[in-house]
């Protein structure tokens, strides 16, 4: 089994009666790029804040790089680059921020600072508050990368960025950082970006993790099956969702699509099609308002 760099058990964060994170069970393997996706308010940022020690869990536990979050937070912060908000000290220039930040991290790499400042075209002499949103994000990322972390935790790193800057950042993350065998955990609701760079995805909604899987597994095993027939089964271990409209029943299954389709045929159904799903479709099935009946209700 691969080593886990992030591991949560029943992680819960409540604000009064609202559960922002509700019994989250997440596993991030070392060396992976893990796309943590969900709608606005799904609990992504709250989860990452708990990992960073900015917020305390109401119950449950989280381990980052084998260390209990909240217990020895300093050990986590020394080895992890967190970019939670793209807001640094606004009155400092990029150079000031580098000087300030370098003192905290023994493995700080000034070579990386020079390299990324040039490659990403960041005006290092300008005060942070005067930078464009794109440059602010790039500077945040530069500081996180220059500390040479084992794990990079990014909260919506491409939010509000134009496609060119987004492409620059994703290239740096994948080609420079992740190719070294280091781990990235990034939250996003831009599914196309996650699909482009991630090899693992976790889909969260209403504070619960609905799905955690390798993207390749999703591509090769997850299928949408459309069937016409009556008295068709509405529950199966591999079934993620099922919906019925105008005599056509649609299933989304996580594995064994052919066998499931065959069993539907045996039960009198006529299988119209078995289609692969992309991440966006899976996401919509699980958390979107697609016309479906949740599995729990059907079961």
């Amino acid at each position, binding site marked *: 089994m691969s080593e886990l760099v992030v591991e949560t058990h029943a992680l819960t964060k409540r604000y009064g009666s609202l559960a922002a994170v509700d019994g989250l069970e997440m596993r991030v393997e070392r060396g992976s790029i893990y796309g943590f996706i969900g709608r606005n308010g799904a609990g992504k940022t709250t989860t990452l804040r708990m990992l960073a020690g900015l917020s305390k869990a109401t119950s449950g536990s989280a381990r980052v790089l084998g260390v209990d979050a909240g217990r020895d937070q300093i050990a986590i912060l020394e080895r992890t680059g967190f970019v939670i908000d793209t807001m640094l000290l606004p009155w*400092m220039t990029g150079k000031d921020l580098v000087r300030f930040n370098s*003192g905290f991290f023994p493995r700080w790499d000034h070579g990386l600072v020079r390299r990324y400042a040039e490659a990403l075209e960041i005006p290092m002499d300008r005060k942070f508050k005067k930078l464009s949103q794109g440059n602010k994000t790039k500077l945040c990322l530069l500081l996180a990368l220059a500390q040479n972390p084992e794990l990079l935790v990014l909260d919506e790193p491409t939010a509000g960025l134009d496609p060119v800057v987004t492409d620059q950042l994703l290239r740096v993350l994948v080609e420079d950082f992740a190719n070294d065998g280091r781990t990235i955990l990034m939250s996003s609701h831009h599914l196309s970006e996650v699909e482009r760079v991630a090899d693992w995805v976790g889909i969260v909604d209403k504070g619960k993790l609905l799905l955690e899987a390798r993207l390749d597994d999703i591509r090769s095993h997850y299928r949408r099956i459309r069937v016409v027939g009556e008295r068709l089964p509405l529950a199966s271990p591999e079934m993620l969702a099922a919906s019925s409209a105008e005599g056509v029943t649609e299933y989304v299954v996580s594995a064994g699509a052919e066998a499931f389709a065959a069993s539907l045929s045996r039960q009198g159904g006529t299988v119209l099609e078995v289609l692969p799903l992309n991440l966006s479709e899976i996401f919509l099935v699980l958390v979107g308002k697609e016309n479906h009946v949740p599995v729990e209700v059907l079961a």
Partner: protein
Amino acid sequence: MYLWKYWRESRIAFLAGLLLVGIFLSFTVHGHVSVSGPGGASDLRHPGAGGEVGQATTLLLLFFYLQIAPLGFFAWLVGSFGVGRDLGEGAGSFLFTRPRKRAVFVWSDWGVGMAEVMLICIFANFSIWMMIHRILLSMGDPLGGRVVFGDNAVPLSAAMSMSTAGGILIAGLIFSVTYASTVVVRHARGVILSIGLFVGYLVTGAIAHHFWEAVSFPSLTLHAFTPYGPNTGAGWEIAARVLLLLIFPLLAQLSLERAEL
């Protein structure tokens, strides 16, 4: 490195304060000194042998209370920098994902700020020391570097040391309360809370004393002088005021450690 950040934030205020005190010092060192004779109109309190020296004592006591306003303003200004300001500007997530305990941020800020406040206080009191010293010299220094309190001749150094201690304690209190307020409010606007606390204390004290004469709130300033000289029994009071100063950064630390961002 974190110390450098607070220095970067506060250095303009500190250097401006230092410059103003420096200008004042240059006047006290190079300015013209004019002293009226014994029994003259400006011989305010102390007739007799040490009468003219009494003017210097008056000046010293006047300065002791007058220093509160500029030093208090400086302390208030410097107190608005640091973690509270960073939180107000939305940089808390960045700051608190640096691998240091939150207490380190508080005590580093407080330490550098307090050092700046102390240096300005010492420098300002040194200026007055120079001024009074020159006045005494121009009088022929009849008491050998001493000033008079009542019938007592007291070394100027002892009197100025007490004045400096009093200045540091009141400016330090204003700095500590302001710094803690910005952290608790999580915004530089905590300086307003700080003013409110001081004004509230003074007004409440005045009202309480008006209705119940026996009630008298402790003074915010050190009882540095008695009619007979520097208050030699002020040791415990100084210790108590130092402890009071330390309570506020401790409150800021506790508040910050419990804060969720």
